[in-house]
């Protein structure tokens, strides 16, 4: 099982529909400061459904919607899809490809929004995402996605905080 495609629409600095294809093995990602590399990581985490929007560097989920960049008006929704190759059926769904889609859509004025989830284009709940993905050992709050600054956080921890990491794992 592996991540085949990441489909971004109006997610943070990805103001145009962008499809990124990934292969197996070791893929490098590079580019200047502020170009969007960590935003790609945030997009993946967004779909996996982390406990807080803060790990996506957003005070609220609507901050994730493309703000217009230099001259445009802000968008009113953002949509991210993760497409996994599932030929080995590690995800307990009977299809060779499984697509998880998450949408945040502004509703009315202010910061209200609606949240939508789809699995292979069928409406779903976040709990469905987490239960299917955790069977494939993919977690939003796990250790497989090492964010910029995570290593410094571990370095700065006290021995007690480090022990609590082990507790959370058990």
């Amino acid at each position, binding site marked *: 099982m592996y991540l085949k495609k990441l489909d971004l629409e109006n997610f943070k600095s990805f103001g*145009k529909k962008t499809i990124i294809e990934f292969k197996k093995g070791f893929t*490098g990602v*590079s580019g200047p400061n502020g170009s969007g590399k960590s935003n790609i990581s945030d997009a993946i985490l967004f779909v996996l459904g982390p406990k807080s929007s803060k790990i996506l560097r957003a005070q609220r989920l609507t901050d994730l919607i493309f703000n217009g960049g230099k001259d445009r008006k802000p968008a009113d929704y953002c949509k991210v899809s993760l497409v996994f190759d599932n030929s080995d059926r590690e995800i307990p769904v009977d299809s060779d490809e499984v697509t998880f889609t998450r949408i945040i859509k502004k509703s009315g004025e202010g910061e209200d929004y609606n949240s939508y989830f789809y699995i292979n284009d069928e409406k779903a709940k976040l709990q469905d995402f987490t239960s299917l993905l955790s069977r494939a050992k*993919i977690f939003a709050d796990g250790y497989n996605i*090492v964010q910029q600054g995570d290593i410094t956080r571990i370095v700065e921890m006290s021995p007690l905080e480090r022990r609590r990491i082990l507790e959370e794992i058990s």
Partner: protein
Amino acid sequence: KKDGLLSVYRAIKENFSKIYSEITNGGEAVMYLENENDPFEGGLVIKARPKGKKMIRLEALSGGEKSLTALTFILAIQQYDPSPFYLFDESDMFLDGYNAENMARILKENSNKAQFIVVSLRRAVLKYSDNILGVTIMPDGISKVYEETYTEEVNTIGQ
């Protein structure tokens, strides 16, 4: 609950020491509970001995040595409960060229069993990639991703 913690602790403890010696080509590191009989009293201490030096606490190591040790801790946790895909976002901070390359070499070796997406600005790391995605931001503030051939684009960024 205590047994759960102790079994996680013992497994990760062993991974940690093995991985450190591999990533540092012969250094030595240990992690231990300050109170193994009553683990909830006291924390988890990490000590490391980079090659040619004495074993000292994590807090006293150099910036790069601390980073490498913290990265090893994360790799030890990953090894305890493996995932089909991993993303590392600039985990080579503070590492000099030699250590950044050691890190990349370990990730490359593991990439035959899992998918690795590694964000880095450094040639020492990117040269281990099977393929590279370049990301840029256009003057209008919109990001763009393209496939990079190793020799041309990366050499200018990857300093």
